[in-house]
């Protein structure tokens, strides 16, 4: 084969690739009709805890509105706010409320927003099935997880009623995780303060589950969905915040009695983004459908009052 033939082959291959791509994009925009004539793009970024919820809603939304493109990034709550306040995203997912520095940044760049509560997560402390302990107070948890903690065995936990002489095997998410931020702040009093010698599972909360299942003295914390999906294989600790032991459950998270580990999950749409009809439609669609999706994903759905409050909040900036 001559050289020109070779170059032709390679060029053809490249063209073929692009052709497939082009045909591909034609298909996706042409299929399904139905729905309104909405089109455009919606950029969402933020918490990796809220992301599955947003992704699921977005999928259903796009199935009905095939000309709208929704992308969901997972840069983390902090990373999401950074992009949001710089005007790069339309909606920010957050597993905690916006912080003062972030509020300032948004104000500086003229980005108006509204905090919309979309679901609740009940951070669950999980222990091995063999563990007889039923309940720990917040102080006991802080003793175990505090930065200077030297507790290596369950029997060393101060004030523990049950007799359990097993070495502690701690599992928890990494510092990028909103779960980590929330747990350290609520239990240890400050975000980022924790003992360092635990099994760091990064973003893979399932490894926390596996780890606790596999170690008799295991203790780990992760989102509620990770417990509910593995309910027979491990136990959830009840937490005593001064008012008695409360187990993590849908009801206790909704009424706030499961404290301090029930955390609200938010979505922050921007005022500017709500000028776009597709974003407006998306937000209403989201609030209409979030409860059904939340429960299937292991989150705690909003109560009727909470949902009304969210709808009112969204309406405040024009949704």
């Amino acid at each position, binding site marked *: 084969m001559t050289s020109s033939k070779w170059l032709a082959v390679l060029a053809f291959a490249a063209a073929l690739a692009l052709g497939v791509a082009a045909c591909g994009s034609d298909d996706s925009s042409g299929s399904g009709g139905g729905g309104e004539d909405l089109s455009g793009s919606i950029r969402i970024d933020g918490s990796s805890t809220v992301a599955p919820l947003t992704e699921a809603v977005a999928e259903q939304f796009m199935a009905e509105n095939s000309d709208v493109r929704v992308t969901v990034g997972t840069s*983390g709550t902090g990373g999401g706010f950074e992009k949001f306040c710089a005007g790069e995203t339309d909606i920010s997912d957050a597993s905690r409320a916006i912080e003062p520095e972030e509020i300032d940044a948004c104000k500086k760049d003229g980005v108006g927003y509204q905090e919309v509560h979309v679901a609740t997560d009940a951070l669950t402390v999980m222990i091995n099935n063999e563990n007889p302990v039923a309940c720990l107070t917040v102080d006991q948890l802080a003793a175990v997880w505090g*930065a200077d903690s030297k507790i290596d065995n369950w029997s060393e936990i101060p004030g523990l009623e049950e007799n359990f002489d097993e070495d502690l095997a701690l599992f928890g998410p990494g510092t*990028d995780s909103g779960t980590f931020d929330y747990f350290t702040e609520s239990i240890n009093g*400050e975000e980022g303060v924790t003992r360092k010698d635990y099994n760091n*599972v990064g973003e893979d909360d399932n490894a926390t589950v596996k780890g606790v299942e596999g170690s008799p003295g295991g203790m780990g914390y992760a989102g509620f969905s990770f417990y509910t999906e593995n309910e027979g294989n491990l136990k959830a600790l009840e937490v005593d915040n001064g008012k008695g032991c409360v187990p993590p459950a849908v009801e206790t998270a909704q009424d706030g009695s499961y404290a301090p580990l029930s955390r609200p999950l938010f979505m922050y749409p921007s005022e500017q983004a709500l000028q776009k009809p597709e974003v407006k439609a998306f937000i209403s669609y989201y609030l209409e459908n979030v409860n059904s999706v939340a429960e299937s994903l292991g989150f705690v759905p909003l109560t009727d009052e909470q949902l009304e409050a969210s709808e009112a909040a969204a309406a405040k900036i024009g949704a």
Partner: protein
Amino acid sequence: MSSGTAIAPEPAGGPPRRLQASSKRRGEKAIQWLLAFCGVLSVLTTTAIVASLIIPTIDFFNVVPIDEFLFGTDWSPQFEPPSFGVLAVVAGTLNVTFWGMLFAIPIGLGSAVYLSEYASPRVRKTLKPVLEILAGIPTVAIGFFAVSFILPEIIVPLWPNALLGGAAGKPFMALAAALGIGLMVVPIIASISEDAMSAVPRGLREGAYALGATKAKVAMRVVFPAALSGIVASVVLAISRAAGETMIVVLAAGSTPQFTLNPVEPIQAMTSYIATTATGDISTGSLDYRSVFAVGTVLFVMTLVMNVISIRLVRKYREVYD
């Protein structure tokens, strides 16, 4: 290679005639410059890499004292209060690399000696491409294999509980990543070493056989030393690849920076720190962000040094057969 300015010997009584065409085609020089630019691009790339690493690193050292960074063993940049001792993640890289090479070197060299000295040509023809397949497997696949198979099905059942703290109940550990990395670099060692051994002149082998040596003797006493340069080069190349590997370590070794060489502990290597942090929840310009570049600089320098050593070694021994 031709330089385009060859001069013909002087004919009797006349000026020297060049072999270059007397009428220069238009654009010869232009083409030369265009091609030169393509070459220069490599220098530009290196410059860009160095620049993109150095500037944030210098910013980083404005805040974190360089001795704390270079000699500290506690790497916890996102905890409160943060600590920036890079030795923890360097140890993580060394941990995984060391145990990986401990696996890969005997396997790789053993396979190379087998292919070169013992296997029949037909076996070699089938076996060598099969090993090359291993080289082509994407690292994310190897990482997935390491964490979902090697760790639970091989390490946890087989590792004695009393040894170094035991392997039970650990979702991530250095050894899983090390074995994955070892598997990944076996083809590098095997292939290059086998090439080096094949290049040893047959005469050397036949002489030894003539003296009555056995295959094993010939392989280890004659061929192996003769091909040593290529073998060493392949090992250094493999070490370099192993140290720079990201996905296998991210998937299987965990994200707990620990200053240890214990294989059954979870660790964080330099590469996995960069990967998980740069895609995660940090803001540009923050200290965490800059720490990524500082670690990147250390990694870059380490692989550069290894590369220089390997080039020196190859050059020194390649002369033997040229």
